[in-house]
């Protein structure tokens, strides 16, 4: 019997793994994909709780999260491409202009 706890635990683990990736990976594109993974797991929580309470509002919120993450994908990939062109590498340690 699958309960809401299973979905929430799966989403929690996916979010934690995505967080580890976003904090430790050095490739800019992989960091960006890890952020997408975290957004996906949040979507799963929205849908599971919306299904649990029998309301469609959770699905609507997941829909808007998808719209925002699509916009983020377009702008993020453009930023990554500009960064790689400028620095010649996708290593985010090269982005140290504002580091002191």
């Amino acid at each position, binding site marked *: 019997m699958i309960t809401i706890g299973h979905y929430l635990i799966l989403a*929690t683990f996916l979010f*934690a793994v995505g967080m580890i990736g976003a*904090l430790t990976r050095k490739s800019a594109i992989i960091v*960006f994909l890890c952020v997408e993974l975290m957004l996906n*797991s949040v979507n799963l929580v929205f849908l599971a709780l919306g*299904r649990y309470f029998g309301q469609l509002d959770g699905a609507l919120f997941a829909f808007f999260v998808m719209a925002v993450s699509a*916009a983020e994908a377009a*702008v993020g990939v453009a930023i990554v491409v500009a960064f790689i062109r400028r620095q010649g590498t996708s290593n985010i340690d090269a982005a140290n202009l504002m580091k002191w």
Partner: protein
Amino acid sequence: MLTAILFFVLAFTGFTGALLLVFHKNPIVASLGMAVSTVTLGVLYIFLHVPFLGFFQMIVYAGAVMVIALYVIMALGREEIGVEVGTSQVLLSYAAALLFIFYVYRLLRKSGFGAFFPVEKTFGSIQSFGNLLVTQYAVPFEIASVLLLGAMIGAIILSRREWS
């Protein structure tokens, strides 16, 4: 029973894809792992009675986002930059993830693991979804359209050639 087995298979596959994304050295394998993870999450959305969003997820993520990411990796940034091990940043991130899991576990233990109640037939249909989208959520919908337009213009400006 069948849905339980399917859920665990899908959860295992999706989690393996996420682990591949985070820990594999080759960026192409990593992004393919992310694609596997998004597709299994889409199937889980279908299990949650929102099939429209499930297919939407597969089209948008596995179809658009992953293809763009793979394209950028193949065209520009195919370097093997793996996980850096042993630094304090890595240890702190693991500690943060464990703390997060621990607090969610405490929250779940307090609230319990409720079973899903059956929902009415129209739950999650495209008709009810669209009805809600143009009535109660009309303003966020319009704001999302403006946001996507701005993102499109921003992406065009950012990827012009004379910018760099």
